[in-house]
């Protein structure tokens, strides 16, 4: 560890805030070849500038090339990785720089998974469904509340991700820290699935109007299902769709949606739905 005592080469809070603002553009350059690499570098520049402003050109070029290697994670997780990378860049000497790449590459997969399961699959659906249920009743509060709920977390994780990543970076990812993230992801799955279960009841609405007339008695299919459990048919439809998706690894969702449209129209024609 060769830490120059030169105060000019220490990353400041201001630099990290610059990273936060630049990070808002991280995904514009996301492409199929290097994914988020260009975005990562362009967000990371304030840090590199601070550390390399008095270094020879060759080292500057190497620093940039180092961060142009393939990189892809979840945008909110990127904040944490940017912060941690800043800490690692600051504490390594020029010939230890593989560490930076190694840590970045090691983090991007697991953190993307956690970012997805906590934010995209749990928090966003919760905000969306609360907002939507308000909007269904014609209240302008729906989108407003959804916007606030989601963005307190969205902007918060980005801002604090960078600062925490820098100050606590190393302990966050080694030892007990990684365990905490894993547990968070587990808990998010439980909350998410419970909420999704509730959503099935309120969102997937199937109304069967088909009935069989036998003499005086008419059997209504809807009533038959509802006697077993209200909303049972919705649950069965959802589980069926889930099984189809599971068989195809979720690749053919658009096709499935179009099929549902066609089947619905046909069954409405035949008088099953209405």
């Amino acid at each position, binding site marked *: 560890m060769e830490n120059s005592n030169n105060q000019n080469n220490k990353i400041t809070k201001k630099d990290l805030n610059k990273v936060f603002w630049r990070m808002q553009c991280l995904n514009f350059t996301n*492409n199929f070849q290097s994914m988020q*690499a260009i975005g990562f570098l362009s967000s990371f*520049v304030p840090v590199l500038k601070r550390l390399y402003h008095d270094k020879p050109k060759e080292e500057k070029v190497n620093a*940039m090339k180092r961060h142009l290697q393939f990189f892809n994670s979840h945008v909110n997780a990127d904040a944490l990785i940017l912060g941690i990378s800043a800490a690692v860049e600051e504490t390594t000497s020029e010939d230890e720089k593989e560490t930076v790449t190694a840590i970045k590459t090691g983090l991007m997969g697991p953190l993307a998974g956690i970012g997805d399961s906590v934010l995209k699959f749990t928090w*966003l659906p919760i905000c969306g469904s609360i907002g939507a249920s308000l909007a269904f009743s014609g209240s302008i509060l729906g989108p407003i509340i959804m*916007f606030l709920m989601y963005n307190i977390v969205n902007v918060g994780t980005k801002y604090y991700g960078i600062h925490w990543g820098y100050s606590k970076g190393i302990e966050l990812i080694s030892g007990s820290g990684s365990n905490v993230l894993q*547990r968070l992801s587990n808990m998010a799955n439980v909350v998410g699935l419970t909420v999704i279960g509730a959503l099935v009841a309120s969102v997937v609405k199937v109304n069967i109007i088909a009935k069989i007339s036998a003499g005086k008695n008419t059997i209504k299919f809807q009533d038959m299902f509802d006697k077993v459990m209200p909303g049972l048919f919705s649950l069965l439809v959802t589980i069926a769709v889930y099984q189809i998706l599971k068989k195809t690894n979720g690749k053919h969702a658009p096709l499935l949606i179009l099929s549902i449209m066609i089947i619905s129209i046909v069954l409405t024609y035949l008088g099953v739905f209405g």
Partner: protein
Amino acid sequence: MINAILVSVWAGICALDDLGTQMIRRPLLISAVVGLLMGDLKDGLLIGATLEVMWMGVGNVGAYAAPDLISGSAIGTALGIASGGTATAVALAVPTSLLAQQLLILYRSGIVYLNPIMDRVAETGDFDKVFRINYIPMLLTFLIRAVPTFLAVYFGSGAIKSVVNALPKQVMTGLSVAGSIIPAVGIGLLMLMMMKKGELWVFFIAGFTLAVYLKLSVLPVTLISLPMALIYDYATQKANSAKDNSESDSKIVNEEEEYDL
């Protein structure tokens, strides 16, 4: 005309947000503003809420190219309001999203050419030049959503109206039925991501039961699920640490045996 311009500019702004700040990006927020611009907030909210639950788990998964919710929501909502109906909006939003998705794939393959440019910038060793590379894709991503939206809204509304009027009633009814079944796809995709262990099914069923029998909405269900999540976490922790303990116990035993030399 004015409406078409306003909606397309809004779609462009949402496109910038989708790749940048990621603060809007969802149908409910996009459609509500479209409703505001078109002077029919109530319909905008209704269509937005319908699309929001319909696309609940869609457009979120990084692994596959998701339907383009932005163009779909903006165009669907604008034309739905113009030709009066949630069913129309849903019917239009789906194919539009799927078509616009192809444009996105083109865009993301196209900007591969930024990589060699960026490599050249890196060779100069000048940090100040780096950020400028973002301006090209910014412009592109704005246009790629704004232009199709403008064309669709400007030329589409008349055509859509006559098509909707010509269709038999069952088709429109069928489409609204589809609109209330399609959320199952989004929910299914979410389940696919979260159902990491078979035992997690019980939480899914519990959530469903709370909503069906107690008529609870999402917020109370979320709050009830928190203690369940905590208990589940502690239980799995205990199981894991028990394993660890037994392992470390055997380690200690091994060490003691070594000391017996």
